[in-house]
């Protein structure tokens, strides 16, 4: 039994934590929150230089070829630091999609720029406030030209290329496919939209006969496989964030005196912190299983990913909202950092689709496994 990260991976974690404490403290995160800056370009460049962006990209495609366990380690630290960069869009979704389904030519032409950070990618799936199901997709492709509207697209305003989910032809019942679109090219109009978490950017993309290049042959099942991979990585970010929210709540409760003693001594607070700990530990343990499934391409990936995602979403939700509660009025001020985690928690919980849909997806995966 070796269900732990190894010494090298733990060393990477320590280095990443130190680096991010120095380069992505709350003051840096707030620059993205309080200005028009969409992401921290300096941080992004350094992620490329240190080989973080290419951690799971093989060396032949310009990556550092470390592996997915190392990428999980980095993801947790990015989550802790709330790093204001398009890491999830470009790496968990873009690079993973290319590595999963890209042709040799696509991998060779696109992955090296993703690994250095020179190119930013994103996934354009949602079409407004309704579930993003295959049936609901109206964006379509004919003769290699893609048209339709996507909202919201995380990092859509800053990305160079998007993987767009669109129907093959406009006919009713047409199947969805994945297409690569150059967002700097013709037929693309993009606008930044405001969101609950301004530390990450969201956009509306309108396509009018934009040239589109097919990615893979499978369509929807491929999309779900990519989402499973991204869900594991994002769950590590969520657990990282949840743990920091818990640490903040604990530190504040130890130093805050009321009725003559630290509020951390009252059971109402102690038990809530214990619950944060319980939920975070369960989520972390489920994330480890997800990491194992991701790194070994195990048949269990669909179940493991949904399990990690559902518990990490729940843990971050609980820790970030109760962190504000334990801080009392100060937790509700702009000045304190509690809201940064609260915002990010909501962002990540919605980023790959709602908790309701992931729970449903988990049960579907279990039904499939039982039927097999």
């Amino acid at each position, binding site marked *: *039994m070796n269900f*732990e990260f190894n010494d090298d991976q733990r060393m990477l974690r320590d280095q990443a934590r130190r680096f991010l404490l120095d380069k992505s403290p709350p003051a840096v995160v707030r620059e993205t929150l309080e200005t028009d800056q969409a992401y921290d370009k300096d941080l992004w460049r350094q992620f490329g230089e240190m080989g973080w962006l290419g951690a799971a990209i093989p060396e032949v495609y310009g990556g550092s070829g470390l592996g997915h366990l190392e990428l999980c380690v980095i993801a947790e630290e990015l989550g802790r630091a709330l790093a204001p960069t398009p890491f999830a869009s470009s790496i968990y979704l873009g690079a993973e999609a290319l590595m999963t389904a890209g042709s040799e030519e696509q991998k060779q032409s696109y992955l090296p720029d993703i690994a250095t950070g020179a190119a930013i990618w994103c996934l354009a799936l949602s079409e407004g406030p309704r579930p993003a199901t295959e049936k609901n997709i109206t964006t379509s492709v004919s003769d290699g030209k893609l048209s339709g509207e996507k909202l919201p697209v995380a990092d859509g305003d800053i990305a160079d290329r998007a993987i767009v989910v669109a129907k093959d032809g406009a006919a009713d019942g047409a199947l969805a496919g994945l297409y690569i679109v150059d967002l700097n090219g013709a037929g693309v109009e993009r606008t930044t939209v405001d969101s609950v978490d301004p530390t990450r950017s969201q956009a509306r993309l309108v396509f009018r006969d934009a040239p589109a290049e097919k990615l893979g042959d499978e369509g929807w099942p491929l999309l779900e496989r990519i989402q499973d991979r991204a869900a594991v990585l994002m769950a590590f970010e969520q657990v990282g964030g949840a743990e920091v929210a818990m640490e903040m709540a604990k530190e504040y409760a130890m130093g805050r005196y009321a009725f003559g003693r630290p509020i951390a*001594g009252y*059971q109402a*607070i102690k038990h809530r912190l*214990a619950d944060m*700990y*319980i939920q975070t530990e*369960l989520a972390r343990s489920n994330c480890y299983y997800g990491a194992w499934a991701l790194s070994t391409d195990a048949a269990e990936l669909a179940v493991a990913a949904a399990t990690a995602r559902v518990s990490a979403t729940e843990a971050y939700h609980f820790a970030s909202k109760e962190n504000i509660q334990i801080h009392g009025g100060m937790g509700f001020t702009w000045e304190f950092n509690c809201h940064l985690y609260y915002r990010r928690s909501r962002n990540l919980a919605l980023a790959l689709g709602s908790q309701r849909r992931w729970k449903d997806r988990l049960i579907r995966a*279990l039904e499939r496994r039982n039927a097999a």
Partner: protein
Amino acid sequence: MDFADTQDETAFREKARSFLAENAENKANAKRTNGTGWNKDEALAAAQLWQAKKFDAGFAGLTMPTEYGGQGLSPIMQVIYHQEEADYVTPRGVYEIGLGMCIPTMFAYATEAQKQRFAKPALRGEEIWCQLFSEPAGGSDLAGLRTRAERDGNADDANWVINGQKIWTSGAQFSDYAILVARSDFDVPKHKGLTFFFLSMKSPGIEIRPIKQVSGAANFNEVYFTDVRIPDSQRLGAVGEGWKVSLTTLMNERFAVGIAPAPDFEEVFDLVRDTELEDGPALDNALVRDRLADWYVRQQGLRNAHFRTMTALSKGGTPGPESSINKVVSAVKYQDISFFGTDMQEMAGIITDPEIAAMDGLFQTGVLSSPGYRIAGGTDEILRNIIAERVLGLPQDVRLDKEGAFRDLPTGRD
């Protein structure tokens, strides 16, 4: 990351597997039962037979020293054995307290001759032990206990006379020996006036009365002491240091208290697959799926946390906080799943008759048994305090019982 055993672990696992396959019934072939009934004579005889078999095959006292009949193995082997045994129907339970808590306390505090005398018969299942700790006035607040231990005379080695009452004693009715903590001094602060003993449950002056539980079963007892005499040679630890000895026992309890029984996710998943609701199969109902997902991620979270603990043990480390999380999560899940399972059966969910109730009344049994799991071995609230104080390092609750004579503490009674 991988789930592979080391070479030693593989060899041990295979040995355990073949022993179990030859000597026990695999759960996959066994009929589901919904009660333990381990206070019946035949169940007791079966448990004794099984313990003796384990001893003879080298699977009893896995982590105990070899000179006392144990196997001298590392804790990881214990975990591996439990994993394998979990697939089989075996009459466990009777020896868990003795081997999990009483004998380890004896190892820490008894004389060499006493260890030689008591360890092996306990391991062979010839002698059963129970633990006389909780009292009507000392449950979660164990140190509040009032059972009196008085010396019979002034000599340093004078014997002891015990008067008082214990409660919630599992297995007292068929135990041969017990460990006991009692108050030897009412004039010093609460935690400083306790002394620890072991004694024969056949001692004159002991009276055992079963407690009928919500579930109808009687796994626990009240134990009354009237002038029960204990030789001073059976004192464990110094006079007045009974609290320190108790902590040794309780530390072992955290590892011994297991996960709640079925129904768990698998059983409720089975139930909803066979249930038809007003608008179609229950498994297609969004609300049902939402609840199923909640229980699955909790169950898997505990399972995966256990893998992390095993990794630590395998490398010679100590168990992590998993042991305190386990019961808090699984007992509530057990109760919630039981409630939900009866809900799925609509008005008939109230019926316990195994001929009528789904899955032989498993969920109805759970409704009536689960409240006990949220209390036994540390209540939900006490376990949260343990996590808060020992894992997160938060301050203790305000205490009004640390100073002054125990006899002066308010009791709420006249």
